[in-house]
């Protein structure tokens, strides 16, 4: 690759990483509270449709992102009501929410645009180049000539990190995910904390979906989330439940994915399925080389009922 190609590759890596980062930062907060939301996929696709419909209704991509966030949050709410409110198993609930989210968005899309869909063209979230930063050689345009949602992700990572590790609120959140009984005994409202964390995760996933629809594709298609919810969950682990590392992990995964298209475009004569598997294999390798054990929050996925 020459320098221009390298720059383009990096741009592509960031573009592919951003939706993962958005969803994974949200999920990090959710998981830190002891909830694993594998219904994330449902929130992402809802965010994509919500973003698309919002952008059409309000004739602007910005408000589209906001409605995407709301849609993602709504799906997160359904998950939270069952998994936290009712104490139902988180994995089953997440499975149902994913199926339901994919189905519901398809149903709404068809109700709005007809059974055979439409060639939908949306107001898009155009890249905004940040004056000086985007001129940095090599990485400047990749990192700083992106859609506003990318900057939102850059911003949320340190904010989430700060809240998580430096504030009393974050302390309560982490305690809730590690030892809910102890947190409750200290006066933390475990279920409330988990509710909020899950809704936040849902909203972030919604923004990720809106980004896909408005910044990336400029359209909505059924199932366009294409498994990103699951990858985001893997990214959270790769980022060791630390929002800053999660951002990097997402970009890493984005780079691995971008590489596959560049290698294909470069004309490497390998079956393309091998390129497609590449980011996953690379992530496995990265994990193996990523020395030191990271540990999930101890109470992750365990339903909690104050034992009264």
């Amino acid at each position, binding site marked *: 690759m020459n320098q221009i190609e390298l720059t383009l590759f990096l741009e592509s890596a960031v573009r592919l990483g951003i939706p993962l980062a958005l969803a994974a930062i949200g999920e990090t907060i959710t998981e830190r509270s002891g909830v694993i939301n594998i219904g994330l996929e449902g929130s992402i696709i809802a965010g994509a449709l919500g973003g698309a419909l919002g952008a059409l209704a309000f004739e602007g991509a910005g408000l589209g992102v906001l409605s995407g966030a709301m849609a993602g949050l709504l799906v997160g709410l359904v998950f939270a009501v069952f998994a936290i409110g009712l104490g139902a198993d988180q994995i089953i609930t997440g499975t149902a929410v994913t199926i339901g989210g994919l189905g519901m968005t398809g149903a709404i899309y068809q109700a709005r645009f007809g059974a055979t869909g439409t060639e939908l063209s949306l107001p898009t979230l155009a890249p905004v180049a940040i004056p000086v930063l985007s001129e940095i050689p090599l990485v400047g345009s990749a990192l700083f000539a992106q859609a506003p949602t990318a900057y939102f992700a850059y911003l949320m990572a340190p904010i989430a990190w700060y809240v998580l590790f430096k504030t009393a609120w974050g302390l309560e959140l982490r305690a809730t995910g*590690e*030892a809910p009984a*102890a947190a*409750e*005994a*200290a006066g933390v409202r475990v279920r409330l904390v988990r509710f909020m964390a899950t809704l936040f995760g849902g909203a972030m996933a919604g923004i990720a979906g809106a980004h896909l629809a408005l910044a990336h594709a400029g359209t909505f298609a059924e199932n366009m989330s294409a498994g990103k919810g699951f990858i985001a969950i893997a990214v959270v682990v790769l980022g060791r439940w630390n929002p800053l590392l999660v951002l990097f992990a997402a970009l890493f995964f984005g780079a691995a994915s971008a590489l596959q298209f560049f290698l294909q475009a470069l004309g490497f004569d390998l079956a393309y399925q091998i390129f497609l598997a590449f980011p996953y294999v690379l992530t496995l390798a990265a994990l193996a080389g990523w020395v030191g054990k990271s540990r999930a929050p101890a109470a992750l996925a365990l339903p909690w009922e104050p034992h009264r």
Partner: protein
Amino acid sequence: MSDPLVRLRGVQRRFGRVQALAGAELDLHAGEVHGVLGANGAGKSTLFNVLGGLLAPDAGSLEIEGVQTALGSPRDAWSRGIGLVHQHFTLVPALSVRENLALGLRGRSLTEVGGVVEATMERTGLRVPLEATVSAIGVGDRQRTEILKTLLRDPKVLVLDEPTAVLTPEEVDGLFDLLRELAGEGRAVALVAHKLDEVLAVSDRLTVLRAGRTVLTTERAGASERALVAAMVGSGVADEIALGVHRTGMKRDAPARDPSAVVGRLTGVTGERLTNATLEVRAGEVLGVAGVEGNGQHELALVLAGRVRPAVGVAQVPDEVAFVPQDRRTEGLVPDFDLTENIALALSRLDRFGAGPLMPWDALEEEAERIRTRFDVTAPSVATLAGALSGGNQQRVIIGRELALGAQMLVAENPTRGLDVAAAAYVHGELVRLAAAGLAIVLVSTDLDEILELSDRVVVMTRGRIVVVPGNERTREGVGALMLAGRSQTG
């Protein structure tokens, strides 16, 4: 007497088939230290959990400062000025001590918390390693953290459920001074402990629970040990426990054994928290291991019990060693298993339960039943989940199981921690009997009285090293001094 700060009346609480509380009563007055006694499973923790807002009572009333109150959560209890130090730790293992303390002080900024913590440590003399992760500190430090966490919120009513079990004698004395001081400031202090002398030493008034009911409330002045024990366990067995066996019946002057039969031997074992540990354990003796928590006793116990193979040095121990581990809820038991399964965990390896691929459940269930009866475990049946037992009853199950192993050697860490007087006496009696029968016993304990009373030889662990205590220094003071040499390790 003034109106009580706390008045509990007719409190009932049921867990499935178990009526844990059946009309318990308790008054706590400002300015008093109130001892609460009762056999294992009497309902002490349940009652305090009701007071702490953790459990909702099925019936009964709670008044705080004369006002009828219903506590919906621990949060409510906190806001009413009730601070509860739980029997089982309610710390977050993955967080640092400082963070755990900050969690107790919800809502204040972290810098503010720092100041309050320092001040409280200063005032109470409770020193804890602030930056350490809780999972890496010993139970003594955890207990201190737990108490500190509660005190930070400046409660009007302070309730401590078995706080002394893991503290050294000096620390117990210090804690009691602190409790008196706190009471002197006009707070009400309630305390559960199983050692009568401790409770008697610190309390102004006493309440005894039996089978979920309050059977006695009395001024300290008017209480005799005998009457208290009678109230706790019912009249019949009280005498021998209170007066005889527990106090004096244990100590043996001349152990009957063959001193040449070495059952276990460590040579130059070095590893985590162990430095060049060399030790022999002989048949028929009780070897007492004293030390401040975190000086390597637990690691020594694991090696002696054959649970950990040392990286450096040689450990010659029997294939089968009975082991009563320090943390009963994570190492001793599987809380989600029933009693039979928990007993099977250790016993199903034994030849007498056959060697085929199938589990001999019938025989194991019989064995479980036997242990339940023999050790008087309060549980509806052997199909009860271990996690649903009171702390003392969990300990009984473990001890019963390990003794049934019929091993040549027994390593026990704080075997009577959390046991009521009767059970503690029984366990002590068993240890003595087994030693007499030729078993090699290693008794690791933070309870110096227990060590001094039962042991033939005593060693002290300080900073991972073993120091043998000469016969003439085998006194509370002598051993205590050796132990304190290792104090800074944890402080």
